């Protein structure tokens, strides 16, 4: 111990290191000027004759034009899917279907960087999220369900599963490729063919997936991809030859779809909105909780149906947590989605930006106290600074309505019972978060949350083996795991 050097005097205050720009290159993406509809294995011109531009929301530049599928196009695609179902897919041995899905999974892994860059360009999400979350999970989803394709008879006790037929699948813009994977993988594994409609603002990775499907040599028509807006989705949902409708999106549209298919023999699953409570108890590991709260609401700009948009803090730790949250918000880097250091990217569209702005204004107007860290936002594109509200009451719109943006409403509670009451005081029921070191309290709380996914001492974790879906007005049906197969099969009792 004698040869120890004397301790060096402490350095002066650490210099504030700035992050140099670390942009991911766009060179890996080759964009066409125009993308047709992917029907029966080919990209074709729309019979509607209509096209619309798709942009990069971080700078509003047009990336490409895509076709807007009209009613006639929907009909052609559904017919292609029906034909492929009858002639190629339904009767293919599950072990063969599996290998097609494995091919897709592998191709997504091989082209992961290209997909990730394109996802960030078209959707505005930070490259580190599309690279580390969306792409690995999308590939894993195909890989997981590939394995089910030849094991379906093991999935449902005392039931014989058969495919439903043609699935019409309508997906949102927040995880464009990942939602496509969530929809396609179980449908195809179970022997259905599909017509997929990506969201209006984020069509490009779905169309690139069409290219992967060509490379995987899936029989033409097994997967068809129709770009368009709400009207295209409505035509697809309403098409009489669609056997199964799967929708992920807002509760409002979900209810419309529910009404549209009422009285028909169509099977339906809905994954809708949320207003999740993220509940922090006084004994929680506060620093971890801060990270979890930040991840819960600022992940993907808060464009997450299961976002932890209501923070419930036990009173004794409210001040401490709030201070730490404010400090942490100050370190979030908002900006270029393709910069590898970016934490919060661009808002997906102008319409969404306006919606967020309107709800935030209502929060201020109704008397909640807003905090935003000093934050320089780019001039072009759609941006919203990370935002906190304190002084929020349960009746405020920002505590009741899904904002779908980087806006956190903070409420407090005293007892676990009060936390349960407040957490469940919403028509939604998609997810919940619980932060406490007490194991028995975790299980007690988890049991009482009327929500389909409960994250304890973590948040926003996803896995293909883990069933995901809502209680109450957050929808019905599960995606992921064995449970995620059930929406895509007809079950007859084994006699």
């Amino acid at each position, binding site marked *: 111990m004698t040869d120890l050097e004397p301790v060096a005097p402490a350095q002066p205050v650490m210099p504030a290191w700035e992050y140099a720009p670390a942009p991911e290159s766009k060179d890996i993406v080759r964009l066409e000027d125009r993308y047709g509809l992917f029907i029966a294995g080919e990209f074709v011109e729309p019979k509607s004759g209509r096209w619309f531009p798709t942009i990069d929301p971080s700078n509003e530049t047009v990336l490409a034009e895509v076709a807007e599928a009209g009613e006639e196009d929907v009909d052609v695609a559904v017919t292609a899917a029906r034909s492929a179902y009858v002639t190629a897919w339904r009767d293919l041995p599950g072990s063969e279907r599996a290998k097609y899905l494995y091919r897709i999974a592998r191709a997504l892994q091989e082209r992961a960087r290209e997909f990730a860059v394109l996802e960030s360009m078209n959707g505005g999400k930070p490259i580190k999220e599309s690279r580390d979350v969306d792409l690995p999970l999308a590939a894993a989803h195909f890989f997981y369900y590939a394995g089910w394709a030849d094991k379906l008879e093991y999935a449902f006790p005392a039931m014989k599963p058969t495919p439903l037929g043609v699935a019409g699948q309508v997906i949102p813009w927040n995880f464009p490729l990942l939602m496509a994977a969530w929809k396609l993988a179980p449908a195809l594994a179970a022997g259905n063919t599909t017509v997929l409609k990506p969201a209006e603002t984020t069509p490009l990775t779905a169309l690139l997936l069409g290219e992967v499907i060509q490379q995987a040599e899936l029989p033409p028509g097994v997967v068809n991809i129709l770009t368009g807006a709400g009207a295209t989705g409505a035509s697809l949902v309403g098409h009489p030859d669609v056997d199964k409708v799967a929708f992920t999106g807002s509760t409002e549209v979900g209810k419309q779809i529910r009404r549209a298919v009422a009285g028909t023999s169509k099977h339906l699953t809905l994954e809708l909105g949320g207003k999740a409570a993220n509940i922090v108890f006084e004994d929680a590991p506060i620093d971890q909780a801060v990270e979890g709260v930040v991840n819960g609401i600022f992940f993907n700009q808060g464009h997450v149906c299961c976002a932890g948009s209501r923070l419930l803090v036990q009173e004794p730790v409210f001040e401490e947590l709030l201070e730490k949250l404010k400090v942490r918000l100050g370190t979030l880097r908002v900006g270029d989605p393709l910069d590898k250091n970016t934490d919060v990217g661009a808002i997906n569209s102008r319409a969404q930006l306006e919606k967020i702005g309107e709800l935030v204004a209502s929060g201020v107007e109704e008397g909640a106290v807003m905090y935003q860290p000093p934050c320089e936002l780019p001039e072009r594109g759609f941006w919203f600074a990370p935002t906190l509200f304190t002084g929020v009451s349960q009746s405020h719109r920002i505590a009741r309505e899904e904002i779908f943006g980087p806006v956190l409403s903070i409420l407090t509670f005293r007892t676990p019972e009060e936390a349960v009451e407040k957490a469940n005081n919403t*028509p939604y029921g998609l997810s919940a978060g619980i932060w406490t070191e007490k194991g028995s309290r975790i299980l007690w709380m988890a049991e009482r949350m009327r929500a389909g996914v409960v994250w304890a001492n973590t948040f926003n974790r996803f896995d293909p083996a883990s069933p995901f879906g809502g209680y109450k007005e957050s929808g019905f049906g599960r995606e992921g795991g064995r449970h995620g197969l059930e929406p895509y099969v007809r079950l007859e009792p084994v006699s």
Partner: protein
Amino acid sequence: MSPDQRLPVRRTAKLSIGGQFPRSESGRTYEVVSADGRFLAHAARASRKDLRDAVVAARGALAGWAARTAYNRGQILYRVAEIMEGRRAQLEDELRDSGAADPADEVSRAIDRWVWYAGWADKIAQVAGGANPVAGPYFNFTLPEPTGVVGIIAPAEPSLLGLVSRIGPVIVSGNVAVAVASESSPLPGVSLAEALATSDVPGGVINVLTGSPRELVPWLAAHMDVNAIDLTGCPDDLIPEAERAAADNVKRVHRAGPAEQHLSEITAFVEFKTVWHPMGA
């Protein structure tokens, strides 16, 4: 006085709401006649208000029922079978009056169905839930939980077995039920409700209404505090409107399933909850 001189005491056929046996608040009744045209009873014709009262009673009973151990729920359902076995003469008489093909067989099957579903109570979670092998250091499991308040339109016939077949799978997982019994043959349903009241099923867990499904379906489907509806006995022409109304609070809608008695009838009325927790030393 010889037995055949004695005038039997007739039963007033009432609703069963929250463990009580009220008449319809509307004061309405309808005449129940036997298959051969004899007057049998005046059954209560439940109103919209009765339906709403039943939903309130059911909602009030939900937390307690769902919180019971699965073992306890299984015991209580089995107890229902015990009580029914003791009342089979009455049930058979009522089924015979209603023109049932084989009253003794129907009662036997109804009792056996309670026993079958009772045995599921503490097995559903193991068969329908489980641990999920996620790709990360997390413990992750999925469990079925009751959906909540379930409205049931029981089939017109078989009036007893049909009602039992709908209620059993709903309540075994911890749901509570507001059931509308067969309109043309309501008396077995009324007797079932009386059997339930003398078993250990807490008041409000199973509420049995008599009346017109045609009248009650739209209100049940539109009720914002009903979480799921079972339309097995719903007239076909009412289904589209019921499903449209069900959209208002995203109700789960169950139409007649492929199986009369199956685990799938239970899982039609559960929600799957997935819980994550990190693993670490």
